[in-house]
């Protein structure tokens, strides 16, 4: 019946006091034989199968990408051409707009997910009786395939007969061509991305808000503070770790976002909604493997420059608070 024992139950049965407390000293007291036993029990061989797959399929390609981005490449042979691919990436208008769009898309989607996720979470931790149902309704799109969402919304957003246009015309608004207007296409896709992803942000915030001790809110009640005071002075600062998580997750997702854009606009009209990931796919399809790999390196650098510093900054903030 070992299987039915949960960790929390077993914890109470263990001789916690003497064995657990002296972990640092116990290490010194151990003989060579014990260390050997530890090495055998927690053998590094446990890493081996995972390391082989991760190394071959993820690390090796990431490293060799730096070399092949400097070549003209057919997958069978390659010719070293220096920085030409990168020069092309930063000079051709269609590729430059891809860089810009990637940033706009990532910042816009994660900003909206933070704001709306927080708003929904506050509503859904409030005294609403149907909150369980509403949480599920908001969360479910996270699980649905992006392609299905993309196709459905490109139909809903059709300029003439689409549901959105029909509803808007009933209230007397002429619907714009959401996906066909170059100045709107990226924005429309970003909004659908938020529709699909805001449920995860909401649930992360709900977890963060529920972890805040009730006493703090009661203290505000005693002082006669308003609901806004509670939000401003307790919820907002104490849910900060959740905010960091939501920002990091949606930036990581937003910067490499591809499938929704590809199904809804294909990067168009023109290049108006192209992002780096769709540019990479187009170059790959066209057989420019070196150029596509250079795009990957650009994306890698961009993600590293944005995410790793943010990650360190957030971690230091969390230690402080």
């Amino acid at each position, binding site marked *: 019946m070992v299987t039915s024992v949960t960790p929390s139950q*077993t914890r109470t049965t263990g001789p916690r006091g003497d064995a657990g407390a002296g972990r640092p000293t116990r290490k010194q007291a151990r003989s060579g034989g014990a260390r050997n036993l530890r090495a055998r029990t927690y053998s590094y061989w446990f890493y081996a199968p995972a390391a082989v797959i991760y190394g071959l399929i993820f690390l090796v390609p990431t490293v060799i990408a730096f070399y092949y981005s400097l070549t003209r490449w057919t*997958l069978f042979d390659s010719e070293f051409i220096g920085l030409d691919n990168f020069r092309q990436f930063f000079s051709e208008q269609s590729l430059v707009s891809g860089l810009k769009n990637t940033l706009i898309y990532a910042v816009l989607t994660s900003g909206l997910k933070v704001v709306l996720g927080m708003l929904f979470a506050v509503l859904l931790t409030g005294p609403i009786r149907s909150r369980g149902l509403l949480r599920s*309704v908001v969360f*479910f799109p996270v699980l649905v395939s992006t392609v299905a969402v993309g196709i*459905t919304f490109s139909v809903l957003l059709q300029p003439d007969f689409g549901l959105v246009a029909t509803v808007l015309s009933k209230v007397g608004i002429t619907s714009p061509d959401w996906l066909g207007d170059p100045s709107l296409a990226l924005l429309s896709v970003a909004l659908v991305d938020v529709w699909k992803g805001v449920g995860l942000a909401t649930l992360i915030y709900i977890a963060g808000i529920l972890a805040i001790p009730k006493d703090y809110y009661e203290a505000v009640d005693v002082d006669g503070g308003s609901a806004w005071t509670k939000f401003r002075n307790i919820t907002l600062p104490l849910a900060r770790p959740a905010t960091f998580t939501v920002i990091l997750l949606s930036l990581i997702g937003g910067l490499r976002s591809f499938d929704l854009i590809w199904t809804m606009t294909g990067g168009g009209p023109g290049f108006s909604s192209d992002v780096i990931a769709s540019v990479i796919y187009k170059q*790959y399809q066209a057989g420019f493997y070196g150029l596509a790999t250079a795009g990957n390196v650009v994306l890698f650098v961009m993600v590293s420059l944005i995410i790793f510093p943010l990650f360190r900054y957030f971690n230091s903030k969390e230690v402080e608070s």
Partner: protein
Amino acid sequence: MRTKTLRSVSLEVVAILVALVVFVVPFVFMFLTASKDEFESADLKFSLPTDWAVVDNIKEAFAARDGMLLTAFKNSTILTVVSVAILVVLCSMVGYVIQRRPGRVANLANILVISGLIIPPAVVPTIWVLQQMHLFKTLPGLILVEVAYQMAFCVLLFRAFVAAIPRELDEAAMIDGCTGLNLFFRVIFPLLRPVTITVILTSSVFIYSDFVNPLYFLPGDENATVQLTLFNFLSQFSTQYNLLFMDIVLVTLPPLVLFIFFNRKIVAGMTSGAVKG
């Protein structure tokens, strides 16, 4: 006091209505369009079908392109089940040793895990590597790719859970002469069951819904996954919206069923993994 309850009730009604319109209407639209006949579905209207053609549409969607959808469901099932099985075994082992044996190696492993979460994979070089292994455009190749990309997330979940299992348990087993793989699979792995279920659910949803990796690593109609059929149907059925949406409904059903039964587990996995990361 009464105005307050009245206000909260009306707020609730508004919230429910907005949520229903914004988050449920698109799904209702999918279902309604999937139930119409070809002619009516072309209007793209949000209306009840005059004739419910659900069964006919299911049959036609499966029959299209020599039963591509059926093959795709088979492929997606194999892809998901095998990848998740490999992930559970390998990542639980890694999470266990990372947590139990801190030191330089564990630090390196942790850095690799964080990198795996953040760094976008280099696609064309990966194709090249797969080609060297003769696995490009094969299901095993795609399985390896999914395993490699999901690994970081699963290791995080397992590592956090192993921390809650007391070491004394390992030590007791060691005294009984149980070490290595034996100790792990006999004593520790059964205790990981709650997190194992979470890992199975979340990573199957991710892998089943994945579109980008099959697009790159398993191109071609004959061995498509379900997400690719959506994309192929989009080009083929641009006039037959009923079949396109029937395909969408069929493909959305498995996650829906999982969600209905394991709502809490899935949410726990996605948010806990996220918060730890």
